[in-house]
């Protein structure tokens, strides 16, 4: 019996702009064509290999892995992996080529091939005629004269084999004769046969076997359109101009055995060789051989015994008295950890935690690790799982295949980077890497690129981007209508192509980014398991797989997530410590009082601007209804405003039950113990798993499958499969269909964003902690919040106004007082730092502080001489009033900074002797300053000068503030207008508005939101001098005022008051831009 043809050369969209299909689509079509195996060879990587392998196995097709290597002379060498050694060699070869080039570039050197050739099979002569823009192996081979010239003039190519015969011999020498095949492709293109004939001659001459491939770049013929568009994107052109860069026909799709045999009827051995070769290529990603690093322990200890020792030591610190329950839990956990072989993992995470503690970096474990008493004892998590009745199985159970998931929250910025760099240092550049994050084509990016390729006018593309700024809004408008609204008539001949392409390209990979915090490490070289490459961020190395791929392959990941709020809190605690007094001690997260009434009070009144997680508009709208009274209420509050519960229609039942408006009921009485804490409403992932275990008798294994489906938001398919299983199991147990529907619906809603209880607890700790700081250490809190911008939901302008409303005095930037960061002056006052000033160099500001500490500035001239600010920086400082210390008013300083200083050699020499770092300049005019250098470093009255300019008015000052800092310490712009807007309600007065009455509100737009779960409704938050008011806009009205809403900085909204449970919302009926000559700053849109 003859064996069926195997396609041994496919590129997927993971070849980034060189392939038009998902790897899954290739696997699916291969299965339809009854292909026994299929090989994926993406360009310079194995980016899609794991997804491809999973999909292929699911479809009963054996996956083969390989890659197309970009060689130093721009030719392409396809290689296939035969065994584990080959895979290791491919990964290391690719890593080496990637790491010596900048991101996105890779060139393998010919002379390094022999070192990595073992276990790999090479193809010579893949025919790719139609892509004139790309130099392929054979096109070099057959253009000998030009190739020789190039090669001879380039020392780089000295080692490159210079013609086809040489190249064949080179590959035979490097890979071995049995591992080199001559690849033939036929795409019905004029001229390709001539090349194929020469390749056949070459094969005969070197006694090499032939192999037929179709050089697949898309699964089905219509993928050619995607490929043509990708070519345009890659070559920065459009379809009308691309000409011969485009493909000639649509023949590079997967073809059946029958089709390929017909095409190669004259060369049957080329077809027969494909299954033969495929049989040899036995490597599978399933047997990767990955090992997590061991933790070095002292002699006399094994990792098990060492872990046991430190856990019990930690338990003594954590628990005042170790209860039998705690002891039992720790014993059980340790036994399981030991049985599963994970002690090394816990020790390494513990080690990272220790590094953070030693270097004063705040760290907190989150995720399911919070369910573990061992993690609590090791100091990884701050939550006691025994006290909080958390389910350990959610974290670790016997049936679980992968590694446990420990996520560490770290302060964002430099402190997190220090931890990441420490891990690189410990495990080496080839031993640790960030996981990848595949950036895909989404609504706006897809539409933009397709629009450009179809040669639509820039105005249509821009208008589309403006109108649909945040991408996909399928709720109110079909794609056709969206593009029509952007100015393309429905009958446009290219409209069908646009729609087709949009659907085909949506979701395809665009480029590789790095995951925000996922790091993978390895016992041996990580680069033996996955190719590593440089990230665009200096000092970062990124693996070619995303976190889901790594998890699938059992590669352990430690998530080092940067949280702005951790940084804020650490800074705030630091400021508290600096200001420690006998009557008021320092503060840290562990010692914050847990039941502080004032803290719950601001939450109940939704006064939570700046507070972690519960500051968003949606959270603020829920807080007055939720009225948190204890810590667990905050946990629920954090979890309740998520896409999951909203989609599952679960928020309102909980709130209604909490308010006593609805009776507490359960899907089934058996679920009472599980759902009691959340009043019968499932809110957490743990509850979902328990429901499945109780109602459908799911085993630990099946529950694990459900957990993976819940946390795998990329796969609806996975969720659907689990749902079918769940339904069948419940039906078998005789559960009524209506109950089954309810349970399935509530579980499916978690597929998009599952929120584990332990995770909610970790976040609630930060939410509560930040709210406590806001109430009790407001200056420290606000100063840290401004210092860590950008972060959170609000701009610094809104934070400053919130601080002022809370009685905190915010002092402006001043060159005699400010540091780079904002500082706390007293219990009620914050001084803004230079960090809020636009376009001011940090090194200049720090030099200023250094100079000031050495000796105060005596005059503006003295200041200008001693600090190397650029003219623009000086202008900015003068404009925002930072130089008012030396002048009557801002404009006087602006007049003065334009004055040019003249050098004085004598003065310079004296200054240099005095040891100043910067070459100072000395004014010829001023004899006063000569004396100044001799003066001792003590503050003295500044020299005030006069200027012919008039002082700024108040509105001018506010405008200048916004232009230079995007915030103002002065009055809110709306306050300046208030007298002229008599009929407009202030935010603070809205609670008194009658439900159903029509009123007008106005203010600076601080937030526009169109949540995917809100069926096209838009929420707008307007800020005035008294606070924030919220409006809701119906989809129809939004479409009418789309541009006004998305583009205007100040809005006037008329609408009906909806006042319920103390939450006031204006349901908009009319929206106008607020245009007034007195409205400062609006012209430049700085208020965004």
């Amino acid at each position, binding site marked *: 019996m003859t064996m069926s043809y195997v396609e041994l050369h496919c590129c997927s969209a993971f070849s980034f702009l060189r392939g038009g299909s998902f790897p899954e689509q290739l696997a699916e079509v291969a299965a339809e064509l009854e292909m026994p195996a299929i090989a994926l060879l993406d360009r310079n990587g194995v980016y899609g290999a794991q997804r491809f392998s999973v999909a292929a196995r699911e479809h009963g097709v054996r996956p083969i892995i390989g890659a197309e290597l970009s060689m130093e002379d721009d030719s392409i060498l396809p290689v296939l992996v035969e065994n584990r050694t080959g895979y290791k060699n491919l990964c290391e070869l690719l890593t080496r080529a990637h790491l010596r080039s900048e991101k996105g570039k890779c060139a393998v050197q010919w002379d390094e091939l022999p070192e990595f050739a073992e276990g790999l099979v090479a193809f010579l002569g893949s025919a790719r005629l139609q892509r004139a823009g790309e130099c392929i192996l054979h096109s070099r081979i057959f253009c000998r004269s030009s190739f020789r010239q190039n090669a001879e003039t380039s020392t780089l190519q000295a080692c490159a084999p210079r013609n086809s015969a040489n190249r064949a011999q080179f590959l035979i020498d490097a890979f071995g004769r049995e591992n080199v095949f001559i690849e033939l492709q036929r795409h*019905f293109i004029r001229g390709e046969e001539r090349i194929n004939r020469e390749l056949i001659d070459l094969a005969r001459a070197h006694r090499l076997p032939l192999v037929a491939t179709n050089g697949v770049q898309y699964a089905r013929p219509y993928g050619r359109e995607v490929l043509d568009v990708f070519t345009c994107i890659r070559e920065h052109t459009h379809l009308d101009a691309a000409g011969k860069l485009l493909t*000639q*026909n649509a023949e590079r799709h997967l073809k059946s055995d029958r089709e390929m045999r017909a095409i190669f009827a004259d060369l049957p051995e080329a077809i027969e060789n494909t299954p033969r070769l495929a049989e040899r290529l036995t490597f599978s990603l399933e047997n990767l051989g990955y090992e997590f690093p061991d933790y070095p322990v002292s002699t006399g200890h094994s990792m098990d015994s060492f872990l046991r020792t430190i856990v019990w030591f930690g338990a003594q610190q954590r628990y005042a008295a170790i209860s039998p329950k705690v002891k039992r839990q720790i014993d059980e956990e340790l036994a399981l950890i030991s049985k599963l072989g994970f002690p090394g993992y816990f020790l390494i995470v513990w080690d990272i935690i220790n590094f953070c503690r030693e270097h004063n970096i705040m760290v907190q474990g989150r995720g399911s690790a919070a369910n573990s008493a061992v993690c609590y004892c090791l100091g990884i998590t701050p939550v006691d799982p025994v006290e909080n009745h958390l389910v350990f199985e959610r974290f670790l159970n016997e049936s679980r295949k992968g590694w446990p998931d420990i996520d560490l929250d770290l302060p964002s910025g430099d402190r997190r980077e220090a931890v990441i760099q420490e891990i690189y240092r410990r495990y080496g550049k080839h031993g640790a890497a960030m996981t990848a994050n595949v950036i895909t084509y989404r609504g706006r990016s897809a539409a933009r690129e397709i629009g450009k390729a179809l040669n639509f006018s820039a105005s249509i593309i821009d208008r589309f981007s403006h109108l649909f700024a945040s991408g996909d809004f399928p709720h109110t408008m079909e794609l056709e209508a969206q593009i029509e609204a952007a100015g393309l008539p429905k009958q446009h*001949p290219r409209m069908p192509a646009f729609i087709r392409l949009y659907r085909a390209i949506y979701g395809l990979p665009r480029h590789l980014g790095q995951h925000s915090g996922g790091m993978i490490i390895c016992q041996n070289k990580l680069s033996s398991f996955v190719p590593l490459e440089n990230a665009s961020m200096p000092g970062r190395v990124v693996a070619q797989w995303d976190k889901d791929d790594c998890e699938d392959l059992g590669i352990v990941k430690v998530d080092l997530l940067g949280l702005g709020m951790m940084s804020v809190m650490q800074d705030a605690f630091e400021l508290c410590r600096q200001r420690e007094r006998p009557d008021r001690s320092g503060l840290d997260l562990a010692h914050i009082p847990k039941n502080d009434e004032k803290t719950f009070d601001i939450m109940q009144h939704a006064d939570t601007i700046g507070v972690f997680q519960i500051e968003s508009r949606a959270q603020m709208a829920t807080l007055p209804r939720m009225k948190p009274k204890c810590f667990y209420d905050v946990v629920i509050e954090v979890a309740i405003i998520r896409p999951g519960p909203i989609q599952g229609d679960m928020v309102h039942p909980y709130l209604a039950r909490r308010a006593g408006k609805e009776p507490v009921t359960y899907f089934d009485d058996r679920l009472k113990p599980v759902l009691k804490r959340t009043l019968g409403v499932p809110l957490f992932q743990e509850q979902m798993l328990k429901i499945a275990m109780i109602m459908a008798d799911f085993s630990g294994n099946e529950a694990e499958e459900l957990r993976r489906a819940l946390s795998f938001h990329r796969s609806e398919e996975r969720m659907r499969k689990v749902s079918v299983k769940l339904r069948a199991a419940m039906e078998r147990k005789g559960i009524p269909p209506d109950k089954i529907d309810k349970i399935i619906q509530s579980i499916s809603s978690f597929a998009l964003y599952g929120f584990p209880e332990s995770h909610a607890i970790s976040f609630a700790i930060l939410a509560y902690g930040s709210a406590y700081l806001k109430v009790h250490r407001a200056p420290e809190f606000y100063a840290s919040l401004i210092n860590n911008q950008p972060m959170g939901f609000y701009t610094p302008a809104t934070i400053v106004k919130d601080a002022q409303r809370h009685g905190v005095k915010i002092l402006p930037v001043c060159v005699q007082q400010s540091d780079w960061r904002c500082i706390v002056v007293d219990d009620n006052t914050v001084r803004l730092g230079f960090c809020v000033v636009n376009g001011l160099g940090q090194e200049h500001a720090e030099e200023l502080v250094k100079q000031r500490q050495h000796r105060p500035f005596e005059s503006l001239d003295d200041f200008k001489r001693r600090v190397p600010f650029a003219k623009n920086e000086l202008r900015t400082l003068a404009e925002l009033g930072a130089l008012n210390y030396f002048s009557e008013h801002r404009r006087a300083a602006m007049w003065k900074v*334009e004055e040019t200083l003249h050098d004085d050699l004598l003065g310079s020499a004296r200054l240099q002797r005095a040891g100043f770092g910067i070459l100072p300049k000395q004014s010829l005019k001023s004899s006063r300053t000569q004396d100044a250098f001799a003066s001792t470093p003590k503050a003295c009255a500044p020299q005030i000068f006069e200027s012919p300019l008039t002082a700024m008015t108040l509105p001018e000052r506010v405008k200048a503030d916004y232009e230079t800092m995007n915030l103002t310490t002065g009055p809110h712009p709306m306050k300046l207008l208030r007298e002229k807007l008599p009929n407009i309600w202030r935010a603070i007065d809205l609670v008194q508005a009658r439900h159903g009455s029509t009123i007008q509100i106005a203010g600076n737009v601080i937030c526009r939101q169109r949540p995917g779960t809100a069926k096209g409704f838009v929420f707008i938050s307007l800020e005035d001098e008294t606070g924030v008011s919220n409006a809701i806009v119906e989809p129809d009205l939004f479409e009418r005022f789309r541009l006004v809403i998305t583009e205007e900085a100040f809005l006037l909204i008329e609408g009906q008051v909806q006042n319920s449970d103390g939450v006031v919302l204006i349901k908009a009926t009319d929206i106008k831009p607020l245009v007034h000559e007195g409205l400062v700053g609006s012209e430049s849109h700085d208020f965004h």
Partner: protein
Amino acid sequence: MEGQMDLQEIFVILHKWGIHTLGQLAALDKEQLGARLGPEAIRMWERANGRFSRLLKLVRPPESFQESFEFEREIETAEPLLFMLRRFLEQLAVRLAAIYLVTKELTLQITFGNKEIYERVFKIPQPTNDVDLLFRMLQTHLENFRSEHPIVAVALSAEPIKFADEQFGLFETALRNPHQLLETLARLTAILGGDRVGTPVLEETHRPDAFRMQPFSWAAVVSAVPSGETPHALRTARATAALRRFRPPISASVLRDEDTPTHVRSAEMSGKIIDERGPYLLSGNWWDGESWDRAEWDVQLEGGELVRCHQSEQPAPNYGVTRRTWKVDGIYD
């Protein structure tokens, strides 16, 4: 000074200083202003203070040579239109002649009742103000002009040029009568349509023999090879034998045995096919209404002729080889 400031920069600074009027600018101290904003600011100050005078320069607005007319009633015949155009030409000719200019290009704009506008540009090979000649050109064009909607307005504009006697290069020759050529072209365009008169230029596409028409040019001969063609592309497309193309390709009927052509019959040649190469599949322009799709074959007939033929269906948005029409593209020499 750190380099001289430009006017825009000075304006921004003055604005921030609160200097919004000439009076405010004039009130500043000249030297101090100059020390801060440089010589340009001094010039501005002098102007504001009346210390600087300059001669006024006469600036003529560019003269527009355009005549237009809105008919009181919609017109449906050519006579009133031609009458108006003749009057326009006479006026334009007088105005141009008065300033020693001649017409090198005329733009005709006709507005219809449904607000649509028809526009046509006439390039004059030998610039002239000869009203009869120009009128004949417009008349010829309008002879075959048809529209579904009545005309409500007409406009004619002339692009002027200085009259100059032309001196040709040693090997260049002038057209014997350029105006006649123009008239002939206008007549041809009127009969054949604007897209069928001009110089054919090969398109940079995989579509065989695709070309577009460029407006006829008598100044220089344009190379037939598009400038974007790379030597590499030429090399891969090279053929061992020259193809003598039939333009347009000749319709043919082809008998096939399974997928292979076995017999071809057409007006130019017929016979049994004894050898063949193909199909070579080509398709393109899938993104709009111009999509095309063809399967080419090179066949050898009994009589020894080497023939290129193709099978196509248009428009063909699908990707398979369709069984519609066969055409013979040409014969290899």
